């Protein structure tokens, strides 16, 4: 342990690599990892809400399509989905203008499937009686869903959805495999020239930890606000 500490503090070459690479890793983090996560997660939420409502409302045919989608996505590895989409789909004539777009869509559909199950569970947790009360005051099914049920369901699902978001930040490292130049891709490149895997992988891990910690903090703040909104 002491040796290890000495190695980092005494060796000026390592310190220099650490400091030089810090911005080199952080910048693609801010320019690729974060935007990839935000856009993919935003799309995932739209997919999840639509899929959850279709399954909750039991809409014929559509609900079967949605169930099939969730089955496929949950039953196959994310890495396989990335490879299938980026290297496989072009064989069917679907080509990507950039690996980034491909990654966004794969992450969106992947997270959308998981999040739809979370939201569906939360929709079920809103009491049936509130839906009936909505009917009794003359509201339509969609009005009740949009104004009464969904806001409560999303509030209940919020901690789990944030879990998914934090998971996605880390999973974006998989996109390095389809040549997206995000943090981990850049880190691997630096390792091949400096031969310092211990230091650099530790460094990139710390940056992921930093991103996740910020999101955890954001989660706590938003949760407090959401609870205040229902008087808790």
């Amino acid at each position, binding site marked *: 342990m002491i040796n290890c500490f000495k190695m980092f503090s005494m060796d000026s070459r390592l310190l220099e690599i650490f400091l030089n690479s810090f911005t080199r890793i952080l910048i693609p983090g801010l320019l690729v990892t974060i935007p990839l996560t935000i856009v993919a997660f935003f799309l995932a939420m739209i997919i999840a809400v639509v899929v959850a409502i279709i399954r909750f409302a039991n809409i014929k045919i559509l609900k079967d399509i949605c169930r099939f989608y969730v089955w496929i996505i949950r039953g196959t590895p994310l890495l396989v989905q990335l490879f299938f989409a980026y290297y496989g789909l072009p064989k069917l004539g679907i080509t990507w203008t950039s690996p980034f777009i491909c990654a966004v869509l794969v992450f969106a559909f992947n997270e959308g499937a998981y999040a739809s199950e979370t939201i569906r569970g939360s929709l079920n947790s809103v009491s049936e009686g*509130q839906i009936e*009360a909505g*009917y*009794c005051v003359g509201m339509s099914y969609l009005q009740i869903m949009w104004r009464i049920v969904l806001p409560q369901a999303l509030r209940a699902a919020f901690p789990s959805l944030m879990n998914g978001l934090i998971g996605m930040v880390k999973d974006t490292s998989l996109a390095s495999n389809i040549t997206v130049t995000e943090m981990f891709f850049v880190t691997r490149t630096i390792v091949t020239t400096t031969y310092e895997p211990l230091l650099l992988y530790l460094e990139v891990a710390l940056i992921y930890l930093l991103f996740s910690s910020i999101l955890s903090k954001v989660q706590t703040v938003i949760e407090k606000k959401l609870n205040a909104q229902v*008087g808790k």
Partner: protein
Amino acid sequence: MLEIKNLKKKYDNDYVLKDISFKVEKGDIISIIGPSGCGKTTLLRCLNFLNDSDQGQLIFDEETYDMANINKKEINEIRKKTGFVFQNYNLFLNKTALQNVTEGLIIARKMAKEEAIKIGEEMLNKVGLLDRKDYYPSQLSGGQQQRIAIARALALNPEIIYFDEPTSALDPELIGEVLEVIRQLALEKRTMIIVSHEMHFVKNISTKVIFMEDGLIVEEGGPEDIFDNPKEKRTKEFLESYRR
């Protein structure tokens, strides 16, 4: 004003309502009593189409509806004229007391917000909860929630209000405040159908009492007739079980 003819309803193959017919005149306060599981609540829910029916006619303001084959438009027509107060209040948990009352006015009736708020505040005042208008249901007692639910039903100015065991979910000390609100509505000659186990209250407030058992109306009549001189043996037995 409202008439039900030959209403039947079954779950699987068991009839829970076996041929129910009765009439409601304007200003009537009809109480439905009977043992648990006799079909009182189901009857009320069928009247507002929260449950579907297998047979029956509903005549509302001279308009006749086939209860077993009714479309969404007709259901909405009827629901516009009715209010429903649930046993478990069923307030919208993500809305404040005032928003609960105005939601139907603004969203379903497309009323201007200012006007809806004016009516909402008036209704909350009526049930004595104007000072709680910005509270969420989770911050209110059961009795207060039920009074807000009554205000929500009143806001839409229904011709008839259905009460489904409005005090059954309440702690004993909170029952009084809810009954007091219903009593006020009775003084205003509101037309109401009340399913209740509060026999003393029912006897005092009703213009007509219906005793149901096993999916059938066993006996109906004025409160004195039913409570003091029941004709049917079953009615006697039921009421005696309450006196004990």
